């Protein structure tokens, strides 16, 4: 499997580097020429901007929004699960976890389209919706992990010594849960990327001429016969990133 790991790292690092460092190589003034002509390295897009520049600019939102949304989901889901798992009263656990089962029963892209159709446009909305959709999954995994840790004899002993519940939770249970949560991280990031990219592609929550890989695929589709690179290059970058994240995290977990 050694060869596969190298493939995974390359697939992860190349799009990430383009996304993070790409904007540095683009001049502030974006010139506009004729739409869909074969000039420059990759040609021009549907409003006549240089495709190469758009590719360099467009990764930041896709990658950043996915990572931020995942971070927000963990920031909400883990404390929620911790409270549920360490609750002295059973009903508190039920009250916290049961509503999440209902969210799990609704298709996530449907939620995204519905909410984004109503809420104000912008990446904030996308982050919130991705968080709403991902929190139940994270909370379930985290609660199971926390329950396992909370029933250990070591914890019982510490409790008998008079440690407070919160010291136990933050000082002992969270570090002990960490490996499980990290193992889950790759799946969550790719799921968030999937949602963010699909939403941008459907024109949910972003400006129609935004420099964004997913938006580029959508808007330049009409020029597929003239300048295929304007569609294929951003699409391939998105594909590479999701494959790379999955392969790398899967290797890291199994080690």
């Amino acid at each position, binding site marked *: 499997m050694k060869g596969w790991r190298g493939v995974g790292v390359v697939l992860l690092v190349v799009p990430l580097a383009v996304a993070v460092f790409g904007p540095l190589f683009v001049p502030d003034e974006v010139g506009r020429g004729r739409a869909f002509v074969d000039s420059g390295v990759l040609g021009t897009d549907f409003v006549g901007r240089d495709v190469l520049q758009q590719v360099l600019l467009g990764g930041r939102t896709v990658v950043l929004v996915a990572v931020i949304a995942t971070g927000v989901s963990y920031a909400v889901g883990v404390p929620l699960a911790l409270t549920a798992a360490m609750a002295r009263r059973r009903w508190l656990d039920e009250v916290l976890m049961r509503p999440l089962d209902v969210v799990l029963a609704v298709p996530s892209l449907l939620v995204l389209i519905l909410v984004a159709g109503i809420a104000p446009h912008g990446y904030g909305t996308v982050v919130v919706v991705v968080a709403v959709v991902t929190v139940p999954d994270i909370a379930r995994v985290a609660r199971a992990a926390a329950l396992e840790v909370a029933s250990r004899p070591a914890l019982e002993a510490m409790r008998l010594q008079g440690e407070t519940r919160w010291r136990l939770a933050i000082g002992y249970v969270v570090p002990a849960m960490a490996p499980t949560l990290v193992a889950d991280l790759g799946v969550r990031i*790719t799921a968030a990327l999937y949602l963010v990219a699909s939403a941008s*592609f459907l024109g949910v929550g972003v400006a129609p001429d935004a420099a964004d890989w997913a938006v580029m*695929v959508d808007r330049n589709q009409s020029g597929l*016969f003239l300048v*295929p690179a304007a569609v294929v290059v951003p699409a391939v970058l998105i594909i590479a990133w999701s494959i790379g994240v999955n392969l790398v995290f899967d290797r890291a977990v199994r080690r």
Partner: protein
Amino acid sequence: MTLGRYTCRRLLLGSVQVLAVLVAVFLLVEALPGDAAVALAGDNPDPARVAAIRSAMGLENPAAQRFATWLGGLLSGDLGSSLVSDRPVTEFIAAGLPTTLLLAGVTLLLLVPSSVLLGVFVARRAGGRVDRVVTAATIGLHAVPEFALAIVLVALFGVELGWLPPTALGADPLADPAVLVLPVLVLLARPLCAVTRLVRAAMVDALASDYVRHARRLGLTRARVDYAHALPNALAPAVQQLARTTDWLLGGVIVVEAVFVLPGLGTSLVDAVAGRDMPVVQGLAVLFGVTTVLVNLAADIIAFRLAPRAGSAA
């Protein structure tokens, strides 16, 4: 727990979920910032149009009463009518349903046998070269967004090689099945990976179990041991995953319909959301939500029937 009791319990939970979906869909419209009627009327609200929408939506009445009216309409099959075109919502559903059902049906029909066979195939060669390649491929491809995969396939087979039509624009899928090849291929990719991985993992466990070893010692043929004894036990997690991928399939259908210009329910939904046509959005969302709950319900009951132990904890 017997199958009957489990079914009853699961039905109860399912009806609570359906009710929750209905409430959520209704609240979503309630949650419109500001006055719903003004928001729906667009950027330059015309007072007459605002008043018309307001009375059409019954906004003068309290929310609880509106919910009851809407729910009553749903039960009698009346989903209201579009704010934009005045056509009944059921007409929108009837127009989009055949295409969406065709796409999802063909995909599921291909998905179930191919993922089970592929999972069993690699599980019987666990640790080998074929297994490693297939496992890496299923892990990698598992989370690729449909639209990106779709557009690359269109560029390759539709434009570069010219083997298949790039979109289904203006074509009848039934008369011209070639337009369905690429959409179905794209829809298959993600669920195929997920289900194959699960079948493989469960099958590897089952093949290493005591009862399989015992069955082998009794001299049963390998095919009989694998398919009649190990496979049913290995299928339970896959059935539940199949239900969950139906959610994703639904999302995928929305995206794939957009890429290939197929006139299905997903297209109706995206158009209705873009036009803020709330009765249509509500109707479609109820349909999608209820379908998901029912599919999960069926899957849980099938999984319980296949391996009663697995379901008893739920």
